[in-house]
């Protein structure tokens, strides 16, 4: 167990932008919400999943909405408190631990708001080890874990209890409710036992985010390469260094879809890379050969500053390092690749483990 204070929260937030793999949403608003809760109620305990008793009750906490709306209709701690009370009222169970569904981007830090206000620890784990665009794309789905009973609340006092046939239905119904409610909702979902959390979740992801955040912060302070610091901290693989030559981007059904084409610099001079994205970066192609795909993490970082460049913002002229991080082993099972591998996103290629790439 360790205590997450404001400084630790800053590191987790920064690291979560790397785990966003190009998506996940700007965590600034989420950080302010969690920071406010920590200021009022004190630091939040972060526990290893091994410390969680098998019969404890665990639940994911997440915000669901449009980042463009959250910036205006700001999240409130009240909903991050109430969402858990409502789930407890409906299920008659008390939840002992909360946990992020998605440690990439905004939702890496929102569970700290619930944890601080309610007074429960956060588990150092999540359901993705990165960011994904759909609510059913979490590791519990691989083992028959159910998103429901799920509670969605909004600031208007609306509470929705959902029970569904499967997790894909939850995504569809919840997304429609999000729009009707005004595109800023708070969810408690995937209630599970401590034993299930141990078997199902991606372990250590928040402390890894904190490590990445610290590595970037220290590298910047010492004028070292933030890219190298991230690679060293996470056994990452440098896939390419190059300049963005061309970007195609369109919006389809609410998702940012497209590709960025890069020309090599330095050791990669004369080589090309294409990064394909759908909200998150999902596939990297070097000189026409696929060298990395989802569910492994593919991230572009600016060469000079080490700033992670989201897929929504990458554009001509950026000089970036494209890095790959191996995904959690849960995702590398046949079930994992079916749920979140390249074919799930419409790319007709096989998954290639990113660490097999040799420059």
């Amino acid at each position, binding site marked *: 167990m360790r205590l997450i204070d404001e400084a630790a929260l800053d590191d987790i937030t920064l690291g979560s932008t790397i785990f966003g793999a190009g998506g996940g*949403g700007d965590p600034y*608003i989420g950080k*302010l*919400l969690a920071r*406010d*809760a920590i200021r009022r109620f004190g630091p939040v305990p972060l526990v290893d999943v091994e410390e969680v008793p098998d019969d404890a009750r665990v639940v994911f906490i997440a915000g669901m*909405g*449009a*980042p*463009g*709306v959250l*910036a*205006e*209709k*700001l*999240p*409130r*701690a*009240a909903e991050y408190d109430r969402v858990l009370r409502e789930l407890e009222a409906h299920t008659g169970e008390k939840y002992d631990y909360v946990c992020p569904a998605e440690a990439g981007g905004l939702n890496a830090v929102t569970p700290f*708001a619930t944890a601080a206000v309610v007074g429960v620890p956060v588990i150092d784990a999540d359901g993705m080890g990165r960011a994904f*665009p759909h609510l059913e794309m979490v590791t519990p789905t691989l083992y028959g874990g159910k998103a429901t009973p799920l509670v969605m609340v909004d*600031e*208007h006092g609306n509470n929705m209890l959902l029970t569904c046939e499967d997790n894909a239905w939850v995504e569809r119904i919840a*997304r*429609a409710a*999000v*729009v009707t409610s*005004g*595109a800023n909702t708070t969810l408690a979902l995937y209630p599970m036992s401590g034993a299930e959390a141990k078997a199902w979740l991606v372990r250590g992801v928040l402390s890894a985010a904190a490590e990445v955040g610290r590595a970037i912060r220290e590298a910047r302070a010492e004028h070292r390469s933030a890219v190298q610091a991230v690679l060293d901290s996470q056994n990452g693989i440098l896939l390419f260094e190059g*300049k963005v*030559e*061309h970007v195609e981007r369109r*919006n*389809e*059904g*609410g*998702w*940012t879809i497209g590709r960025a084409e890069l020309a090599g610099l330095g050791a990669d001079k004369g080589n090309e890379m294409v990064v394909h994205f759908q*909200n998150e970066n999902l596939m990297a192609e070097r000189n026409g050969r696929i060298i990395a795909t989802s569910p492994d993490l593919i991230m572009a970082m600016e060469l000079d500053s080490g700033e992670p460049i989201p897929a*929504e*913002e990458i*554009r*001509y*002229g*950026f*000089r970036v390092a494209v890095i790959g991080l191996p995904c959690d082993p849960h995702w590398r099972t046949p079930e994992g690749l079916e749920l979140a591998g390249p074919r799930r996103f419409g790319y007709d290629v096989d998954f290639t483990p990113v660490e097999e790439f040799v420059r």
Partner: protein
Amino acid sequence: MSLRIGIDVGGTNTDAAVLDGDVVVAATKATTTEDVTTGILDALTDVLPAIDVAEVEAVFIGTTHFINAIAQAKGLATVAAVRIATPPQSLLPMIDWPEHLLPVIGDNFHVVRGGSQFDGRLLNDLDEEGLREVAGRIRAAGIRHVALSAVFSSVNAAPEIRAAEILEEELPEATVTRSALVGRVGLLERENATILNAALRDLADQVINGLERVVGSVGISAPILLSQNDGTVMTLERARLFPIFTIASGPTNSMRGAALLAGITDGVVIDVGGTTSDIGMLQHGFPRESTIAMSLAGVRSNFRIPDVLSLALGGGTIISDDGAKVGPESVGYRIGTEALVFGGGTTTFTDIGVAGGADPIGDPARVAGLDPALVERGLGVIRDMLVTAVDKAKLSSGEVPVIAVGGGAALLKAVGGIDGIVIPPHAGVANAVGASYAEAGGEVDSVYALEGKTRAGVLEEAKELAVARAVEAGADPERVRIIEAEEVPLTHLPGGTAVHARVKAVGPFRALKTAEGK
């Protein structure tokens, strides 16, 4: 003949330029003074002998008064912030402000029920009674400036307008700054700018009275216009209400001036100063704006400023003994005594530039003995820095013109290697030229729900509103034009739910119809 005077107050220099149409007829660099107005008077005194003041049609001023006031927390009035949202709020006004500015609000913030949704529906009914109670508390605290921000007021202004009416009724002595008139989507950032604007209102009156006095004192009776962050200008009447719009006009003025001096509307601008060079992209004669939120002396705003890349490279940048290391240290304002050409002992970019063939500055004989290998190596490093930066600033891989301006622009002659570079005459006072080149503008930056509307229809609606706003700001209705228009669907919502539209319209000032605005 009709003349325009442009004045740009920078951190070090106050530059002035007099333009007859597109022709610079007089220009000067004076030293910026702490009170700002003395520096302006010095600059005006320098250029006026060359012209007939009766022919001055307008004076355009870009000033640092207001950003200095925020940076130093000097001259700021106490403000009450009122947020119209769903109480209680967790992310309070000023949540992320630097310590030195917190006294601007103190405990004077209030949340009142109300606001709108992203699609214009009401979030809550406005709690008018609650708002009147809040007004009573503001009155009791003796506060004379209110910053009012309602959730999604840029989508549906009605709740914020109604709240402003109530506050004005209850507090007839107070000023009310309404957020939808100040900022864009993004409540915290818009509210920050609204609060700072309210805090600057008293100072704005003082500063503007001072500007009127100093310009009047030299016999000019023409209107004064102030440069805004986005390269457009506003009347003093409007500047008294919205001083916040003037705080970052410097980089914009330089880039606009570069466009006018070079006669190029699309290209890359390199503004070489004493310590840094700013590299940015011109599109349609305006700087490309940054997508990143701008910090106002540590306060996040959603104003967009020119997307410039700052390099630690200026006339005073120190070159190592072997020429292999350029900067980041600079002799800065001490260049006049420390650079070799001025009799000092430090090798600077100015020295290797002059040695490498740029027009003489100071005493060129003092750098005649510099090791040619050092000069060549240093200029090579600088060439690589600039070529890389220009490439970053460009939008696509095609060739584009490059315009060099600023006090150190002439040094780029010695650097070479930058394709298509233009160093226009009067490059050193491009910022003042840019100030005089300004037009009136209006913009729309808002979320539109698509229910019953097409994306094209929404964009048309936004264009009409932007044009109306430009005309309201003083643009000639017959010559107002759209310079930027885009609509992007909101992510994470099913397609067809809502779009974020951004449109900007500009036009020459009506009052200056006789002058040929560009």
